[in-house]
């Protein structure tokens, strides 16, 4: 496991734990009491750290190198999963994945940004930054789900839509705009969950639905703290302040009524126990589908429009 700067106290405890376990094995002495003691210390330390997390540290957790990405959750949640490729126009975007999977005997269309787990894969996945083809693939799969009356779950985890030359040529803006519009009108339940980074239009491009959730250590904002720092402070050095000012954590978003709920993570973060995280996620998805499925499609769409129409704060003077 890798550790972030503020996770260092835990890293030291893990080291101790390893040493004790090894010593126990070598000497055949029962060390289980000591192991338990250190594990309890780790738990305490994790709790302590969690209670004091700054906005920037949450951003760091959302990008933790060991954090599970879309396919890691799908593999854990589904008994069967068939990945579907391509936008049927230009190519297959590896930064956006999707396909039919099943949980608790129901077929669901899963769509999500996908980051790579090692250097080669990170490049192949373009660091989770989709091109227009990715958004168009996502829309194609959503329409497929709609045709066969299957609910849609999107998993959001992107530092932004890719700002490249070909992306502009092929209409990055149009692709995202089209998704926003079409997602509003989907006749099946749509559940959107931020599992990592929720940056800007690139995130929202698969983020319009009936339920919007965020995992506890994720963020959602119009711009990344780094880019915000570079534009407003004219320097890359103010990312911590920018993160603070952007009020981008799940708790902020819930308090603004811009998301419906926060999905708790295992102590220390999703990366500490991906299995537990996947199990929690599965529960929330099933609960949301159960709530949404009985609502007639027209009514669901009406509520979806209403939901997004309410977003915004302004002053009306007479």
């Amino acid at each position: 496991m890798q550790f972030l700067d503020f996770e260092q106290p835990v890293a030291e405890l893990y080291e101790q734990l390893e040493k004790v376990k090894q010593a126990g094995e070598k000497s055949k002495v029962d060390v289980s009491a000591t192991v338990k003691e250190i594990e309890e210390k780790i738990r305490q330390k994790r709790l302590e750290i969690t209670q004091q997390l700054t906005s920037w540290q949450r951003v760091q957790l959302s990008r933790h190198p060991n954090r599970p990405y879309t396919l890691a959750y799908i593999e854990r949640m589904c008994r069967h999963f068939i990945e579907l490729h391509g936008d049927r126009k230009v190519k297959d975007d590896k930064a956006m994945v999707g396909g039919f999977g099943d949980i608790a005997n129901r077929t669901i269309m899963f769509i999500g940004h996908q980051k790579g787990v090692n250097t080669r894969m990170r490049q192949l996945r373009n660091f989770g930054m989709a091109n227009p083809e990715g958004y168009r693939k996502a829309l194609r799969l959503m329409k497929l789900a709609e045709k066969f009356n299957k609910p849609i779950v999107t998993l959001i985890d992107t530092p932004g839509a890719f700002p490249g030359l070909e992306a502009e040529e092929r209409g990055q803006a149009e692709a995202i705009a089209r998704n926003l519009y079409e997602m509003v009108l989907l006749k099946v339940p749509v559940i959107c969950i931020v599992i990592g980074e929720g940056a800007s239009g690139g995130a929202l491009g698969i983020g319009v639905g009936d339920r919007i959730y965020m995992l506890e250590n994720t963020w959602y904002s119009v711009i990344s703290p780094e880019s915000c720092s570079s534009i407003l402070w004219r320097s890359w050095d103010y990312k911590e302040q920018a993160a603070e000012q952007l009020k981008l954590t799940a708790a902020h978003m819930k308090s603004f009524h811009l998301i419906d709920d926060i999905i708790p993570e295992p102590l220390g973060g999703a990366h500490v126990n991906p299995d537990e995280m996947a199990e929690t996620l599965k529960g929330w998805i099933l609960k949301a589908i159960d709530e949404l499925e009985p609502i007639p499609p027209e009514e669901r769409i009406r509520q979806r429009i209403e939901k997004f129409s309410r977003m915004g704060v302004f002053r009306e003077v007479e």
Partner: protein
Amino acid sequence: MAKWFQRIKKGIETSTSEKKEPPDGLWTKCPKCKKLILTKDLRENNFVCDKCNYHFRINSAEYFQILFDEDHSRELFGNIYPVDILGFKDIKTYEERLQEAQKKTGLADAIRVGAGKVNGFDLVIACMDFDFIGGSMGSVVGEKIARSVDYCVEHRIPLLIISKSGGARMMESAFSLMQMAKTAAKLTQLAEARIPYFSLMTDPTTGGVTASFAMLGDINMAEPGALIGFAGPRVIKETIKKDLPEGFQTAEFLLEHGFLDFIVDRKELKTRISELLLLFSK
């Protein structure tokens, strides 16, 4: 009506006297071909350079004056003002930025909505103002577009949105981001009522504005030479570490790649819009 028209007039006075005129107040230099143009002539030519066809950036008051028939228009939703919901502070507070922008422009926020007649046809125009914090989209822009849609549905009048924006407003963070979804959601209601929506993209139209309502017109059009894109050219250059080709992200580039129905010169704008209104009404 009269009061609003005066305010528009005043808007023109302010912007031309503060921005487009050199100190002597008589001449304006074209940024493209460097020709010196009599400011009075420039205004009569709808702020288009008569030598190189450069389209100067103009504000909502000027677009309303170009498009609406005289004495036949009124402002809608002029009573909606922005709020510093997050208590945002970078090197300045958002509150200060808002006050400065309001003082400089005399506007409430980065968009104004007018209802009136264009060569006799009813039209609602929502027009963005770039001078107000870069024409950025926050809650007010989203709400005024939402209400414009409601108004157009209720009165069965077509909608024209004139975009001129750097994108979403950072100081409203996720609230501004969600305006993309909000405006898209409202446009589905306009479509449901079978009321035409025309989108005119002017220089510049980028970021969250392009990636939401600007690209969703039944008719997408743009002014010549306008910069239109999702990412800004500087960001793209930094990403790909190469120079961008000539004409990249211009209106002409977008037309060529299939994202615009046509490009329209400002001097033909009113005629073209009323032609559209005529054809859609038959």
